[in-house]
């Protein structure tokens, strides 16, 4: 589902990603771990074209991204099949929860409003927030906002979901709510890449763990192997 081949990214003259190669099979969960500044976010953002890279190639959900700039059309096609959930949620504050979820299907995929709404309500139900459909993001807790953000991504029916530290802005209670939703998704066979510092989650859900240190793949393999001995 995802192939990253010899990817290198340069920012301000530094190779912040270097010779990164990894494979994510369909229906599996990969967690990206490693020290702060290791390049996890950058790698994730290269996967859906939010950032460019200098060398290598990415194949994701049937699309190929090569080094350098891409025409906007190509990026839009990739992003329709690749969902992303941010550490800071980034919900649209001027829209209710349900409108956050239905906006992209309506304007990007052209789904008729009533259909988008009923499917949106299903998704909110799935993340346990059906009764908050009309609430504005500002009135929701962080955990609730992140679950709406997940529903918003899922509404586009992405073939791959990318999560960048989805719970680091949350307290343990709320983290648990969000992680439960993600684990549930994993059980359903959703292909995912999750950046996380939470080794418990990695052990629980990850098929594969990739450790990035200073822009390079330090270790990669099954969770039990990589995380053996590590705390959490």
């Amino acid at each position: 589902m995802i192939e990253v081949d010899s990817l290198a990214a340069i920012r301000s003259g530094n190779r912040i990603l270097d010779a990164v190669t990894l494979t994510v099979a369909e229906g599996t969960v990969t967690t990206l771990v490693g020290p702060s500044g290791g390049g996890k976010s950058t790698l994730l953002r290269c996967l859906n074209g939010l950032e460019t890279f200098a060398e290598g190639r990415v194949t994701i959900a049937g699309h190929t991204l090569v080094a350098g700039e891409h025409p906007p059309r190509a990026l839009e096609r990739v992003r329709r099949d690749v969902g992303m959930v941010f550490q800071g949620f980034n919900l649209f504050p001027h829209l209710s929860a349900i409108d956050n979820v239905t906006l992209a299907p309506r304007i990007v995929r052209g789904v008729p409003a009533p259909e988008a709404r009923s499917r949106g309500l299903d998704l909110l139900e799935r993340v346990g927030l059906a009764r908050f459909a009309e609430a504005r993001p500002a009135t929701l807790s962080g955990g609730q906002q992140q679950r709406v953000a997940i529903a918003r991504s899922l509404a586009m029916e992405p073939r791959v979901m990318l999560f960048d530290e989805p719970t680091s802005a949350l307290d343990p209670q709320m983290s648990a709510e969000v992680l439960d939703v993600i684990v549930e998704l994993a059980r359903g066979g959703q292909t995912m890449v999750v950046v996380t510092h939470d080794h418990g989650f990695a052990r629980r859900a990850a098929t594969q763990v990739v450790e990035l240190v200073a822009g390079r793949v330090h270790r990669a393999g099954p969770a039990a192997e990589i995380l053996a001995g590590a705390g959490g």
Partner: protein
Amino acid sequence: MTPARQRGRRCRPWWLLAAVWLLAAVPVDGLAAELDEVLARGELVWAADQEGGGPHVYVDPEHPTRLIGFEVELAAMLAAELGVKARFQQGQWDRLPLLLGRAADCVINGFESTPERARDWRCSRPYFAYALQLVARRDSPLDSLEALAKEGPRGPWRVGVLTGSAAEIEIRRRSDLAVEVIGYDGTVDCLEQVRGRVLDAVLMDDCIATFNADRFGELRGVGRPFAGGTYTILTAPDTPRLSAAIDDALGRLITDGRLKALYDRWDLAGRQQMLLLRDAAEVPPARRGSLADLIRGALPLLLRSAGMTILLSVASFPLAILIGLSVAVGRLHGPAWLRPFLAGYVEILRGTPLMLQLYALFFLLPKAGLALPAIVAAILGLAMNYSAYESEIYRAGLKAVPAGQFEAALALGMTKWQSLRHVLVPQAVRIVMPPVTSDFIALFKDTSVCSAITVIELTKRYSVLALSTGRIAELAIVTALLYLAMSWPLSLLSRWFERRLERRSERAPG
């Protein structure tokens, strides 16, 4: 801040405006310079409008720092008769009398003797005889004065006049004519607009038509001059001795032939002038109407002009927002080659006065073959001017939306324009709501500038009515109340709108 204090603060500009009007309207007793003060000062300050004022008072085209004209020389001769020097004071023509007793001792600028002027000011004996001349394009179907009685091919004839002049009074009095009368601040502006086909004709003093005949070769006089009268020198009401001294001086200039010689030098038919002045009948002062009559007569006119003020604001501001928002989006997200042009648009419109922009739209565009009706030029000018300010506000608003919003929208597969339209712009609009509504109130007041291009809105109507009725203070109060009655609901509305937005973004889950 308590609501009451906030309300007080918002309204203060209007009370200030009213206060300024009232001050301007306070009787000038005690301020006026009588003859002895003029003599003591050694200077006779005379007021006139040099803008397009030939042959009366105008800038010498050969020496642009020098004023010339027969009234410049007349003022010098009169001052010499009084044993003092003449000093020129510039003012806008229709408001020159308001300078009396403050910035000027007398007005010498082609002011026709009218009953209203005889009532409100001190008028000298006549010093010049004029008649009204209609001027049109040579190729115009308007070929005689009689033709004014029937509509032209484009409807009523559009006839320009100098606001407050005898020509305006005369043509507005004639209800038998099929004309739309449009008041300008200068006669040369009218001639330009006839040339540019914005106007069908202009009615003006014959000496001005003759003076400008060569410069406007495409135009010609229609019919003979008619409805003649005389010019008078105005002084403040409480200056009987100054006025008498001016009369004496004029008498001496007439008897010893110096006035005739002056007019001959200016090709103004000196002998005929002397005969006309000798036979000129005195104009009796008008009676001052009762306050009730005044309000009854003026209120409908003021209300209609208040409607114009509202129309100008509500038509131009949405347009300003639309243009401003597009410019802001273009500058932040448009193609790189477009950005310098948009930045230039903003800088030019912000860096030049609204008045100048209105002039360009109204007086220059016809030269390029595009004659806009005044109201269209006014709405467009206001919209463009304010669009520059709105675009800066929206640019700041767009920048204030967190970067994560744009990324989240893009990550969902939206195009750049979809992200802008559905995610960034709606948020920016909410962020900038307060400054934008306060700009709306500013624009509402700026509509008064449109009087410079013949649009009669509330302030202009006030100024015209105040001068023709002499009821400066009473009408100022009525006008200020009208402005308040309009702006107050406006600020209530904008505050209601702000509160609604706040509530919506804080609404509890339901």
